């Protein structure tokens, strides 16, 4: 990887990037970069930059490289085109460089950290890509759709511009719907002292409200004590973490944890989302000064696993279609929950076929890390950049898998596009979908 890596910018039009670019000057670029490198980085970045021996072993770890076989798409290639150049030139880079760096950082790397496992030195390339994103955020060169989401976070403390009344109204609507199935079911709102606060990402009330319904049925059937807040702070998602707006990330996480503290719950159980888990479990909490989440965070994968293991929910019939498992990066590479996914799948499904590579070695969906949130302009590239995942899915489909279980919202978005584009004709399910469908439910 010592040869020059060149890939012309694909020049996908994006209003956020293009208008942001128009506001840049060389002085602003240099000053911003120097400020960030001086004030926000240190030994970690220096060590990563100076330790890399350019062996290129990270290449085969990256789904974008494996889908293109272009060195420019390898992790080290992306670093070479961005932070190395920025450091080497001490910030004296031009606007076009920033345009390309922004596109690479936001749309060609999912921060999935697979490459860090394959690097002989354990260099965390996602950390360096996040530094590039931080620079781009400070320069105002962020993809339009991602920036809109970050701005929604800032104005509403949720990802989808959900207004305060719409949130509670949606919970009450889902409660009413669920009561048609189970008469005494409740979605307890703002119940102080409940055992846990169930937190979700904003696409759930906005587009996938049935997931709240299903969770309510599962919790009701298990007889657990839970609540959902009536106030902002209910959304655990965090596109600011990915846009580089760390300060806003802190505000979001503060609201989330303080909602749990206000409700006097003992833990936060969160829905099937990967990036939000990273934000509350690893990144956002630490930005605020918490070594660990101040209120324990339990991902749904773990919670469902515990409910099944303790016999609190029972399976009435197994899911008949053959399933395969997609391991989300943030809960599997990030927290090692992969065997729990498998326990749930085997308990609830007739037949499970493994994709390979799997578990912590699984390929990213190419939607995570905020990439899918960069929106329609980058959709085709995102799907083309993950043909390796399509190959993986096709392989298990040929073995009989009809349903993909992916316990993560972003993975769903990414895999849905891949399944559709590559004409794989497979169903896509959350663990909650399967459990809801197969569990014993109380009689009305």
């Amino acid at each position: 990887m010592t040869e020059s890596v060149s890939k012309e910018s694909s020049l996908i039009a994006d209003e956020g990037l293009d208008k942001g670019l128009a506001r840049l000057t060389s002085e602003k670029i240099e000053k911003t970069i120097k400020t960030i490198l001086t004030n926000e980085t240190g030994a970690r970045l220096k060590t990563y930059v100076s330790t890399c021996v350019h062996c290129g072993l990270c290449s085969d770890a990256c789904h974008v490289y494996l889908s293109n076989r272009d060195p420019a798409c390898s992790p080290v290639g992306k670093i070479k085109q961005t932070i190395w150049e920025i450091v080497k030139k001490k910030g004296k880079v031009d606007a076009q460089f920033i345009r390309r760096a922004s596109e690479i950082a936001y749309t060609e790397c999912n921060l999935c950290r697979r490459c860090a496992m394959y690097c002989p030195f354990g260099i965390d390339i996602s950390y360096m890509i996040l530094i590039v994103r931080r620079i781009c955020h400070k320069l105002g060169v962020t993809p339009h759709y991602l920036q809109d989401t970050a701005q929604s976070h800032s104005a509403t403390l949720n990802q989808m511009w959900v207004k305060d009344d719409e949130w509670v109204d949606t919970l009450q609507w889902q409660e009413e719907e669920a009561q048609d199935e189970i008469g005494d079911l409740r979605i307890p709102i703002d119940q102080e002292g409940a055992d846990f606060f169930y937190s979700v990402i904003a696409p759930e009330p906005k587009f996938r409200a049935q997931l709240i319904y299903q969770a309510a049925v599962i919790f009701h059937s298990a007889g657990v004590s839970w609540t959902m807040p009536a106030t902002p702070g209910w959304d655990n998602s965090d596109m600011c973490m990915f846009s580089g707006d760390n300060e806003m990330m802190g505000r979001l996480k503060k609201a989330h944890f303080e909602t749990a503290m206000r409700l006097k719950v003992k833990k936060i159980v969160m829905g099937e989302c990967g990036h939000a888990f990273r934000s509350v479990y690893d990144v956002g909490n630490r930005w605020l000064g918490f070594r660990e989440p101040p209120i324990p965070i339990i991902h749904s994968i773990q919670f469902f696993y515990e409910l099944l293991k303790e016999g609190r929910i029972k399976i009435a019939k197994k899911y008949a279609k053959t399933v395969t498992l997609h391991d989300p990066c943030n809960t599997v590479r990030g927290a090692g929950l992969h065997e729990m996914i498998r326990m749930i799948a085997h308990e609830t499904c007739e037949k499970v076929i493994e994709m390979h590579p799997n578990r912590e070695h699984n390929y990213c969906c190419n939607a995570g890390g905020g990439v899918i949130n960069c929106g329609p302009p980058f959709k085709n590239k995102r799907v083309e950049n993950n043909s390796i995942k399509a190959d993986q899915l096709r392989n298990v489909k040929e073995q009989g898998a009809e349903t993909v279980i992916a316990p993560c919202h972003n993975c769903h978005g990414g895999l849905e596009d891949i399944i559709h584009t590559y004409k794989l004709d497979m169903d896509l399910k959350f663990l909650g979908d399967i459990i809801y469908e197969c569990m014993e439910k109380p009689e009305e």
Partner: protein
Amino acid sequence: MINKQNWDWENGEKEIADIGTWKDKFLGVEEPYPSPDGEKIAAIVKPDEMEFSVCENGTVWEEVYDKVWYLRFGPDNRLTALVSDTAEWTLAVDQAAWAHRFDYVWDTHFSEDGRRIVIAAQKDGRYMGVTDDTPWETDFETMNNFSVSRDGEQTAAAVQIVSFQSGDIFKFQEGTYSVAVNGRAWPNNFVNVWEIAFSPDNQHVAAAIRVNLYDYTIAVDGVPWRQTFNGVWEPQFSSRDSSVTAPVRTGGKWMLAKNGEVLWDRQFVQLWHHQYSPDGATIAAIVAPEFGRWTVAVNGKPWSITFGDLVTDMVFSPDGAKVACVGKEKGQWSIAIDGVRWPGAFDMAWKPVFSHDGNNVAAKVEKNGQYSLVINGKLLQKQFDMIWNPIFSPDGDKLLIRGIKSGETKYYRQVVPLAELF
């Protein structure tokens, strides 16, 4: 302030209601809430399919609704609930529904004395505050961070002043939000507005704002501080002068600033929820003096004890001489006062409650699913299936305990002299 003088402070236990029997009367019974004076207990109930009402001391409200939620007693012991009748929402106070109807209502607030009741409301997609059934004269496209002055006479919220098309990130960045006080917006707009605070005299308003995507500051009555920062948290007014203080972030560290200038000579990994003592002489804040350690700093000086998980529920004694908080270390919750951790660790601990003279402190705690009280550091041996925050008598010599004893379904109020508690 709650007027406790007229409450029954005679020693003794009074059975108010057997909540267990309510389950036989209704299709559903939600969580019970007691009045501050302990004389009443109420719960949202389902008298029939698709019908909701409120049961108060065993008597059900005359009206039934499509939906009832957010049942809360005010400080003056009036019972409120957000109610929906044929999909029109309003607030009911002691059974009487307000005349104004809305498409949705939420976020009930009370003045300190309970005299004023305030809610947030939405009608035809427009947002407003409503005080005692009187809506703001102006409504807004969006509204959040709804806040109420101590006397309940003033209300304020972050409101959207300029419309922008979905996805118009650049219009948003020009500043489209402001603060509306009693429905009247400040003359200038900001990129974001959060955390609105009223002055002790209820006449002034401060808010945390973002003036562009990167610079944060505090605006007081619409005028931003000259200085900007990398971050700010909720501002507070001093009761001694008209100054405003707020935690601010610069160079990756948090400090306390007064009118834009750094006030404390120390920096922290985190600093938030600062409070003035009632006399305004002292400022305390929850701080992280180092990464992953939390404590309370009083006038900038952190306590020597720290907690690894969190510190929350910080409170001054009414005389301002003491500060108490809840802390959590390795998953166990405890109470600390003036830098001294009380013995005992719990599964949960609630905000400490001081007597008026500040000499006595009590807190609700939970262990193994049972609730009790810690009083002046000693755990009450009596356990409850449910207990609510204790309240000291005006002279501070007695404690009002509101709870449901272990294994029972009856709700009692009990007045106990402190001297007889242990």
